[in-house]
C-alpha cells in the first residue's frame, strides 16, 4: 500500500462502535459517509442563509441564490463542463437518467430505433430505457458481458456489430457497482458518436472516486448522485451538453422554469432552469459543492490510487478463502474500489448478518442488478466497497470475519 494520510478524523460517523466493535464501514458503493465540512455547510446554510432562490430580492434570498448558483458553477468545474448551465440539479442518478429517458426519449425515439445499453447496468440505467423503448416502439439491445464470472468486462468486439446507425442512444455505466469493472468510457463515447448515437454515462460509482472530465470523455449526458461522493442524499446532477439541452422539452413543469404564463400556455426558460421546476434542493446543492471542495483538496487521483490499492489488497486476501467466487476483473487487472463475492452454501445475507456482529458493514443481495446476477447463475453476492477513509487493517478485519463465518457454517 502506498502511504496515504488518514482522513478518518474528518468523518464523525466513523467514530463509533457497532455491536461492541469499532465500525468498519465497507458499504461505500451504496453511499459514502460525510465529512465534517459537508455537514457544516448544511448546518451553516440552515442557520444563516435559508431562503428561497431566484425569486426574493431580500438579503437571505440573494445569499441562498448565490450559494445555489455557486454550487452549480463549482460542480461544473468539478467535471470540467464548458458551462454551468449544463449542470441540472436532480435528486440523484436515478432521476437524472429518467429525465433523459423521458424528455429525450419522448422527442427522439421512434419504432425501428435502437437504444443500446449493457448487461452490467444498475436497474436505474436499465428500467428507464425499457420504459422509453416500450413507449416509443424502439428496441432495447445490450452489449454482452464476457466470462463466466463477468471477468472479461464488456464485449467490445460485439460492439461494432451492435453499433449500427439505428442506434440513437447508448447508455452505459462508467464503473459497475456489482463487478467493479471500469469501462473504457472515452472509447465507448467515441464509437457511439461515430454512428451518430447520443451517449449517457452513469457515473454514480466513478464520480467521487477518480478525476472526471466530461469534455475529455466526450459524452452527451452524464448522471451522478451526491451521496456517493461525500455529499448529502437527495441531490444529484444531470450533466447535458448545452446544444442538446437547448432542444430538449422539460419533463416536469411548474414554477421557476417558465418565462411567461397565460391561461392558454407557457414558455420555458433555457437550461438549467427549464429542468428544475419548483423550489430546488438548495441546502443539499450547496453541501454538494462543499463535497467537491473536500474531494479536490484530497486529490481525486490520489483517492483513485488508494481505492485501487485497497481493492487489490482485498482481491489478494479474499482469494485465499476456501470456496470463494469473486466476480468481475481478475486479480492483477484494473478494478475500482469494490469486490463482490459468493460462497457455495453460505448465503450473502447470513454473511452480512454475521459481519455486522463484528462491526463490519457490507452489502448483500443482487445490488439492483438482477439480470446480470441471473446471467452469472447467482441470486446474490456480498460486496465490500472501499473509500478514502478505509484502511488495510479494515480489510484484515473483513477477512477474519469471513473466516469465522465460513467456519461456523461449515459446522
Amino acid at each position: 500500500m502506498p502511504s496515504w494520510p488518514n482522513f478518518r478524523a474528518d468523518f464523525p460517523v466513523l467514530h463509533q462502535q457497532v455491536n461492541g466493535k469499532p465500525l468498519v464501514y465497507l458499504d461505500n458503493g451504496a453511499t459514502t459517509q460525510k465529512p465534517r465540512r459537508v455537514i457544516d455547510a448544511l448546518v451553516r446554510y440552515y442557520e444563516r442563509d435559508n431562503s428561497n432562490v431566484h425569486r426574493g430580492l431580500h438579503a437571505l434570498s440573494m445569499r441562498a441564490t448565490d450559494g445555489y448558483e455557486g454550487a452549480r458553477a463549482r460542480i461544473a468545474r468539478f467535471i470540467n463542463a464548458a458551462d454551468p448551465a449544463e449542470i441540472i440539479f436532480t435528486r440523484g442518478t436515478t432521476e437524472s437518467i429518467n429525465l433523459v429517458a423521458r424528455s429525450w426519449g419522448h422527442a427522439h425515439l421512434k419504432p425501428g430505433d435502437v437504444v443500446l445499453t449493457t448487461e452490467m447496468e444498475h436497474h436505474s440505467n436499465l428500467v428507464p430505457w425499457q420504459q422509453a423503448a416500450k413507449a416509443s416502439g424502439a428496441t432495447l439491445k445490450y452489449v454482452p458481458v464476457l466470462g463466466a464470472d463477468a471477468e472479461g468486462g464488456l464485449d467490445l468486439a460485439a460492439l461494432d456489430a451492435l453499433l449500427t446507425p439505428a442506434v440513437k442512444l447508448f447508455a452505459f455505466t462508467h464503473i459497475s457497482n456489482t463487478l467493479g469493472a471500469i469501462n473504457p468510457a472515452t472509447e465507448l463515447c467515441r464509437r457511439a458518436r461515430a454512428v451518430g448515437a447520443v451517449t449517457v454515462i452513469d457515473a454514480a460509482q466513478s464520480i467521487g472516486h477518480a478525476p472526471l472530465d466530461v469534455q475529455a470523455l466526450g459524452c452527451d449526458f452524464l448522471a451522478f448522485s451526491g451521496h456517493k461522493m461525500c455529499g448529502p442524499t437527495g441531490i444529484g446532477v444531470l450533466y447535458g451538453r448545452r446544444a442538446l439541452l437547448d432542444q430538449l422539452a422539460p419533463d416536469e413543469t411548474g414554477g421557476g422554469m417558465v418565462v411567461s404564463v397565460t391561461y392558454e400556455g407557457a414558455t420555458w426558460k433555457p437550461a438549467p432552469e427549464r429542468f428544475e421546476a419548483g423550489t430546488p434542493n438548495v441546502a443539499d446543492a450547496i453541501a454538494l459543492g462543499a463535497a467537491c471542495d473536500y474531494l479536490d483538496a484530497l486529490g481525486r487521483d490520489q483517492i483513485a490510487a488508494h481505492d485501487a490499492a485497497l481493492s487489490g489488497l482485498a482481491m489478494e486476501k479474499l482469494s485465499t478463502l476456501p470456496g470463494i467466487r469473486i466476480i468481475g476483473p481478475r486479480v492483477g487487472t484494473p478494478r475500482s474500489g469494490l469486490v463482490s463475492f459468493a460462497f457455495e452454501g453460505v448465503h450473502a445475507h447470513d454473511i452480512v448478518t454475521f459481519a455486522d456482529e463484528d462491526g463490519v458493514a457490507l452489502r448483500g443481495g443482487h445490488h439492483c442488478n438482477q439480470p446480470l446476477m441471473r446471467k452469472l447463475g447467482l441470486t446474490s453476492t456480498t460486496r465490500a466497497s472501499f473509500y478514502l477513509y478505509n484502511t488495510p487493517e479494515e480489510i484484515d478485519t473483513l477477512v477474519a470475519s469471513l473466516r469465522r463465518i465460513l467456519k461456523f457454517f461449515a459446522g
Partner: protein
Amino acid sequence: MSDLADLYQQVILDHNRRPRNRGRLPTANRVAHGDNPTCGDQCSVYLQLDGDRISGITFDGSGCAISQASASLMTVQLKGKTAAEAENLFGVFHEIVTTGKEPEEISDIGAFAGVHAFPARIKCATLGWHAALNALKGDPVPATTETYKD
C-alpha cells in the same frame, strides 16, 4: 455472538444444510411462489391437497439460511395438517418470530425465536409460510414480502 447463536440455532443450521422435502412435488395440485424483492430470496411451495388435508408438501428456492431452514421445517410441520391447522400454526410461528416468545408445547419451530432480535430477517423466516398459505388459498398471485405485513 449470543444473539447470533440464538438466531442460528442448531435446528436451523441443520435444516439449512440438509433441507427436508426439497424439490418439486409431482403429485402437487397447488403451487405458490414467494419472492422477497429486497434480498432476492425465492421460495416455491408445492402442495398435494386431499380434500382439506395437506397430504404432500415440498419447497424449492434459494435464499439465506433462515429462509431455507424455515421453509424446510415448515414442510415437516405442515404435512398431514388441515388448512385450518396450517393457518393456526402460522399464527403461532408468526408470534414466535416477531416477539421471541417460545410456546412450550411446540418444539422445533421455537428455534426461530432468535429471529425477533433481527427485524430485517423476519421476512426471511416467513417467506415460505406466506407461499404455503397462498397455495392453500389457491391464490394465483405470487406472494411477495412487499404485499404482506409482518
